């Protein structure tokens, strides 16, 4: 028995060849080949070929076609590499006439996970804000359609770890999660059988809360400094967050958009008479300060 290399063909050509061979085998009216009804992906097996003499064997799968010359009277060995892709296969044996049989290749055991965790940053204390979706694949990257258990293990930076087991149906499973009140890194690991995939999500401070500044006058100038800028859960807003200071005095209006550095935002204004100064962070307004006792 001589094994030939798989035929490289386009999907259209493969389907045409498949149709033609199926028609030929039907016209010949020969007995069907005896093949297993289902085979696990990557599992080698053999197909008995009765009779005597030489014949040509075709194996038409979802992603490739194999053609071989075989000797009738012995079994046709199907290599594991010929049945890696899950799906419906047609085995066709042609000598003076053609016989054929179809069988199904199913995905093997879970071996890979494609794991999506969204978003990569999430504000703290936001309900149902974290989406975790896992797709289960076997070692040949066939989607495992049989139910498979996927365990989502959540490890926050502070606080106890916990897990959420889930069963993948038709190859996919997902869960939704609230973000916790504390900022920091949260690791979510999807585990199925002996495979696991880890992703990291960053819980970040939400909008500023109780924004306050204090004024330190010095001659004709005033230094304004916010208290440490925090959200309503007490998390510090990250450095670089823009805080806007607005001063209105006799000279007109002056504004400075300055980033938080080391937890606080600081700015210096020169003063021209009584002044009113306000502070804001995004759409959140803070306190107002009136200097020289008059607005």
């Amino acid at each position, binding site marked *: 028995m001589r094994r030939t290399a798989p035929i490289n063909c386009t999907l259209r050509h493969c389907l045409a060849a498949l149709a033609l061979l199926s028609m030929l085998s039907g016209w010949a009216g020969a007995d069907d080949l005896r093949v297993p009804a289902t085979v696990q992906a990557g599992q080698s097996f053999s197909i008995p070929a009765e009779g005597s003499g030489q014949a040509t064997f075709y194996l038409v799968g979802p992603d490739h076609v194999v053609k071989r010359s075989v000797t009738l009277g012995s079994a046709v060995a199907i290599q594991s590499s010929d049945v890696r892709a899950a799906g419906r296969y047609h085995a066709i044996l042609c000598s003076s006439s053609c016989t054929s049989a179809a069988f199904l290749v199913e995905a093997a055991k879970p071996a890979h996970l494609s794991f999506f965790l969204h978003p*990569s940053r999430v504000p703290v204390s936001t309900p149902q804000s974290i989406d975790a979706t896992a797709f289960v694949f076997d070692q040949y990257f066939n989607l495992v359609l049989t139910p498979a258990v996927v365990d989502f293990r959540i490890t926050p930076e502070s606080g106890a770890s916990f897990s959420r087991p889930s069963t993948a149906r038709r190859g996919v499973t997902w869960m939704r999660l609230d973000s916790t009140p504390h900022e920091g890194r949260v690791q979510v690991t999807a585990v199925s059988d002996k495979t696991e995939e880890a992703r990291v999500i960053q819980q970040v401070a939400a909008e500023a809360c109780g924004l306050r500044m204090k004024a330190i006058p010095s001659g004709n100038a005033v230094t304004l400094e916010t208290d440490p800028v925090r959200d309503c859960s007490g998390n510090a807003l*990250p450095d*670089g967050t823009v805080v806007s200071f607005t001063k209105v005095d006799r000279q007109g209006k002056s504004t400075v958009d300055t980033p938080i550095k080391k937890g606080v935002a600081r700015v210096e204004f020169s003063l021209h008479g009584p002044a009113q100064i306000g502070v804001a962070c995004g759409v959140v307004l803070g306190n107002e300060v009136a200097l020289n006792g008059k607005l």
Partner: protein
Amino acid sequence: MKWGLVFFLAIATAVLVAFAWLQSGGLKQHAMLSAATPEEAVQALMGQIQAHNFEPAYASLDRSSDTDLASFTRELAGSDGSLRTYSSLQTAEVSPLHSDADQALVRVRMNWSSALGSLDDVRDLHVRRDGSVWRVVWPKPAPSAVPPQVVSVNYLRWEVIGRNTSQNWGAQDVDSPKVRITSMNAISRPGRVVILGEVENEDTVPAYLNVNATLLKADGSPIEEEGSFDLISHVLLPKQVSPYRIDFPGVRMDAVKSVRMDARALLVPASADPVIAVSDQAVSKDGLDRNVLKGSLVNESGRPVNIAQVLAAYYDNSGKVIWVSDGYVDQALMPQVPVPFAVDIPDDIAARLKNYRVIVNHYARSSD
């Protein structure tokens, strides 16, 4: 015959010399040296500036001018990669304001064409009689630098490490920043529809932002789609708010049933510096009696900002954004040096505006 050739050569030489004199600005120089009126003196000076003849222009100034050649040239030709260095004087309209026997005040409206559009510079110049001619008194330039010093900058910067493209499907990546259009207003202006409002970067990372709008008919089909182009601050730091304006020239408001807004943000590396303060903002009239929002920009960092753009949002009594205007500043923002700016406000908007907010876009040649 011999005398004819001599005569011809003499005439040809005279013509060529006259042509060279004209080409080298001799006529303008002559006009300047013999400026019989204040307007002629200013016009001749503008002619020299237009031709980039700064040395003769400086030489024509009145001796009481409190400037030197280097400062004069720097002021008019630009320096430090400012927008003025990419500009040229296109036109100069001169109009007398006041005149007596020895002194005059002349208004000049200089229109500079630049890489970012035309820029107006209106100045009132004093002109003095010097014998039989008039000479311009050039004002003392504003200080362009602070004394030598060390400015400490503890600088915040964000860098992005993206996903490796060779990784499998489902590999982790960093998400784009979350931005939100906080207000949107559609208004009708002569010959166009304008969409304007504000957008906020709600995230904790910087965003490169574009806002697009699609005008829709009653049946839902699009009329036109436009982007905010340069009427927005494209790079927004965390929690920063920018106004935006999108113009639809040639579209009538009665044809528009609804508007579809689209804010797209990309995660980009960015720096939190420089901080640019906008001081002494006030709405007033300029020399041409137009409504303008004036103020000064102060670069609070330690290195120059080459080109700055002022974006102003105007609000009515109810806090709704009713207009967004912008203006480029043609001087570089040197550290700690106030640079004046003025942006136009349409008359009808000026009558309704209750409040305003200014932000500054900037470009620095060495931004790293």
